[in-house]
């Protein structure tokens, strides 16, 4: 099958949508499909072979933050050229409701079109006005995919339709086969946290509160912190006796993140809300760490209600500490959880999810043999 993927945001900048598109493209190629990705890019020489540049991205204010996108008459002409040259069987557009090449491609194309919606937060007032401008384009979409239940709700509320949910995938083997770093290990056990440290809903302050209790009872425990934010300030705010026990790795590559999760005995997800899908839990499960997560609905679902990890009361530092201490003291239980979680993580492997996406393609193409025009 010849698939055309459109990514609205610049591939040079890391981001959820960009990573999703790259991972999906690679998974589709691995399944034997021909894939071309159209995306804005600064540096055309540095792109994977399957990517076609739509031109330079410019930063514009959109939906309360800054998006790096490209548009304009020259870019629109490039989009049309790419569509014609590609002779795609199906066109798959990501985040089509953005002022970018995504909506330009939708505008220019006819035929079997699939769209994936990533965002779960939109400013509703602007969105309902945008619907008027967008409707003629959005009507062309046959298959709608949402990456989470939250994104699905947003989509149904503002645009309507019956989207299917296909979550973000994980390359499970990258985590399962990562090698642990003995230097990062704590002598009394290792906890890992992944997420921005200065975003309160990721729960880092809550974890620190619990960690103080944990180290009182169980000495020599180390906390590995993976994620960006103001590390100097975070380190200064720690009590002096904890400073040597908390190890900030900062923003690291996916490989190093995998190593950190592989090194950890327990992966803690203390998020207090706003998490639409617990992709990061799947990474922990795949790496073989015992997962300890707050009891948010999305986390509960990924952990099979507690079969593949331990849930604690969301927002409660004392409950977090109690469960962490119990897990630290019980190696057999940690092993049993990891054994159950490994196969469960496979459900979110890109090879499985790309198969689901292909099923959507096949349904959308149906009997239409003319391809994308």
């Amino acid at each position, binding site marked *: 099958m010849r698939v055309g993927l459109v990514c609205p945001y610049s591939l040079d900048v890391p981001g959820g949508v960009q990573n999703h598109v790259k991972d999906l493209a690679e998974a589709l190629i691995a399944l034997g499909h021909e894939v071309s990705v159209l995306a804005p890019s600064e540096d055309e020489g540095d792109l994977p072979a399957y990517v076609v540049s739509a031109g330079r991205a*410019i930063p*514009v*204010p*959109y*939906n*309360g933050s800054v998006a790096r*996108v490209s*548009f*304009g*008459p*020259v870019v*629109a002409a490039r989009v049309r050229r790419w569509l014609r040259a590609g002779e795609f069987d199906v066109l798959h557009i990501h985040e089509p*409701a*953005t*002022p*970018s*090449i995504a*909506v*330009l491609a*939708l*505008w220019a194309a006819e035929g079997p079109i699939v769209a994936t919606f990533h965002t779960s937060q939109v*400013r509703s*007032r*602007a969105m309902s*006005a*945008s619907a*008027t*401008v*967008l409707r*003629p*384009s959005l009507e062309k979409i046959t298959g709608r995919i949402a990456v989470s239940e939250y994104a699905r709700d947003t989509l149904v509320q503002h645009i309507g339709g019956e989207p299917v949910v296909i979550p973000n995938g994980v390359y499970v083997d990258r985590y399962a086969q990562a090698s642990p770093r003995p230097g990062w290990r704590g002598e009394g056990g290792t906890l890992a946290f992944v997420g921005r440290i200065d975003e309160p809903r990721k729960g880092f302050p809550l974890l620190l509160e619990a960690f103080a209790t944990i180290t009182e009872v169980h000495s020599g425990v180390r906390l590995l912190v993976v994620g960006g934010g103001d590390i100097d300030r975070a380190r200064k705010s720690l009590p002096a006796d904890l400073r040597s026990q908390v190890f900030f790795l900062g923003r690291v590559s996916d490989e190093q993140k995998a190593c950190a999760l592989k090194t950890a005995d327990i992966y803690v997800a203390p998020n207090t809300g706003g998490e639409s899908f617990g992709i990061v839990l799947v990474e922990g499960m795949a790496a073989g760490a015992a997962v300890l997560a707050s009891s948010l609905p999305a986390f509960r679902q990924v952990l099979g209600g507690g079969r593949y990890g331990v849930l604690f009361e969301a927002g409660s530092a004392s409950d977090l500490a109690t469960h962490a201490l119990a897990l630290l003291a019980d190696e057999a239980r940690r092993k049993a959880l990891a054994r159950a979680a490994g196969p469960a993580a496979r459900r979110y492997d890109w090879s499985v999810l790309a198969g689901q996406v292909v099923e959507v393609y096949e349904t959308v193409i149906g009997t239409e043999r003319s391809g994308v025009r």
Partner: protein
Amino acid sequence: MMTWVYLVTAIAVLLVLGLWLSWTANRLDRMHHRIDVARASLETQLLHRSGTTLELATSGALDPARSLLLLDCAHYARAAAADAFEPAESDLSEALRAVFADAEEVVTLKQDAGVGELLVELAGDCRKVVLSRRFHNDVVVSARALRSRRRVRWLRLTGRAAVIGTVDLDDAPPEGLAAD
């Protein structure tokens, strides 16, 4: 006899002093009034600019990507709270510059029967925003200078008039539009 002279002089001095102070208070009052007028004018121009932007965005003359961006920023600017309008209006200026970056295309668009007029109107709106903001800030700066005088502060001639600030936002118009 001498006492009389002193008394009359004292009364005269007090009278002059009183007149001078009341004149200062009057000046201040007029200045505050001019600030109110200038502020209202600036707000009207900003509303007019976002209104024209909305009209352009929904006219169908631009591709959906640019229409969407303009709609979003114009809505955001109009809906912004009183203490958040500066970043929102700056975002709109930035979006307008990004959308009308291609000067040659703007020339072609201006000849279009449907949107040509709207574009000319928008260009005017952008220029008027620049002007009205400059005038507003000019009055604010002179009012602040007067308010910082000792006699004004010590005798509280300002009364209960609120502290006034300049309006700081990015109002640089798109180059393609500005060239008329």
